[in-house]
């Protein structure tokens, strides 16, 4: 039962993109078309699954002080493997994802789950957590890409949709549209989701760097106080 919970929480209740607000960069950049979004989602899910398994298996071996560099090396290795597989079997996807494929290394969902879950839990639980989070990430990307591709380009997975192809809102496929659709989706989740909207401006709770980031803003607040 608990294993099942580990798996399902990532899909909706703790969706990494729409609720935890992690991994915004790839979300915005690769959601211009449904195919890209699914490719990115699957690639990130594979990396997330294996990084969670490996980090959880090595959690007693890795010294606490150097854990973040160790995680980054492990994740970078996995990303390189995925990159080579994509290059070999889906060269078109490799071209359209471009720089965002190697940038999975710095996707904070992966490091965040490693730090928050895999380093404290058993291998099986971590595997389910990674898979669930990966599917949640893919679903969120798919949802956003569908909105952007259907209304922005009048197509779905490359198939033309009558009427909409003649009335494109092309701004949606461009950079501003990405921010706008993402903002609207999170607003919808806040409105219709069971949880109340968060008080903080930016969902930093799941981010592995949250305390450093908080320190940075906190220090500034103190300085501003001094100036007054």
């Amino acid at each position, binding site marked *: 039962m608990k294993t099942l919970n580990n798996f399902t929480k990532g899909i909706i209740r703790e969706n990494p993109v729409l609720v935890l607000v992690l991994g915004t960069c790839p979300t915005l950049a690769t959601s211009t078309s449904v195919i890209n979004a699914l490719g990115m989602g699957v690639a990130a899910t594979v990396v997330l699954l294996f990084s969670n398994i490996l980090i959880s298996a090595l959690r007693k071996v890795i010294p606490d002080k150097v854990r973040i560099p160790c995680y980054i090396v492990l994740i970078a290795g996995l990303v390189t493997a995925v990159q080579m597989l994509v290059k070999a079997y889906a060269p078109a996807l490799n071209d359209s994802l471009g720089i965002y494929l190697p940038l999975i290394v*710095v996707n904070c969902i992966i490091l965040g789950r490693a730090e928050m879950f895999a380093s404290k839990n058993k291998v099986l639980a971590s595997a389910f957590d990674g898979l669930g989070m990966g599917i949640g990430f893919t679903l969120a990307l798919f949802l956003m890409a569908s909105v952007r591709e259907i209304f922005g380009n009048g197509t779905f997975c490359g198939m033309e949709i009558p009427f909409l192809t003649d009335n494109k809102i092309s701004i949606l496929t461009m*950079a501003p549209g990405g921010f706008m659709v993402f*903002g609207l989706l*999170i607003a919808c989740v806040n409105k219709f989701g069971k949880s109340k909207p*968060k008080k903080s401006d930016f969902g930093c709770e799941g981010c592995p760097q949250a305390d450093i980031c908080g320190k940075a803003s906190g220090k500034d607040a103190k300085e501003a106080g001094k100036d007054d």
Partner: protein
Amino acid sequence: MTNLIIILLSAVFINNYVLSKFLGICPFLGVSKKLGSAVGMSLAVIFVMLIATAVTWPIQKFLLDPKDLGYLQTIVFILVIAALVQLVEIVLKRYVPSLHKSLGVYLPLITTNCAVLGVTILNISENYTFIESMVNSLGSGLGFMLAMVMFSGVRSTIEGSDIPECFRGLPITLIAAAITSLSFMGFGGVIENLFS
């Protein structure tokens, strides 16, 4: 020379890392609440971007390429950047404590900032020479700073306004980012025609 100016200007305005390439969104949304922290973070990013490019470009050209190890790019670059950030922090702490005091907090954040890894990889994939790479990194850093500073101004205006409950916090920030990004689209095509 014209070539370098075009690279610099297009990195700042047209291919702005934050607003059109979506790299470095986390610090853009997380640290842009106050002007002071926005400037500090951007200065640290420019600094690290330049050093990272100066180190990773020779590594790629003189070490990875001749030995046919191009596939190790991702691992090597992220390790070099992580080590470099640590090193810079130690050196600054020891020799330039005043700079460390103002930038120190932001440095650890930069290790996993996708803009830094992104610029080093893009310099290689665009086949830039060393000078061009450095100029591109400088431009990208300046573009990041421009976006951060502009956006911290936008955010201070949002703070005081009456926003529907479900839009409070992140959603309205993203909508504001969309409008800021829209303004940058106006630069499209300007730079190419400037020197022709």
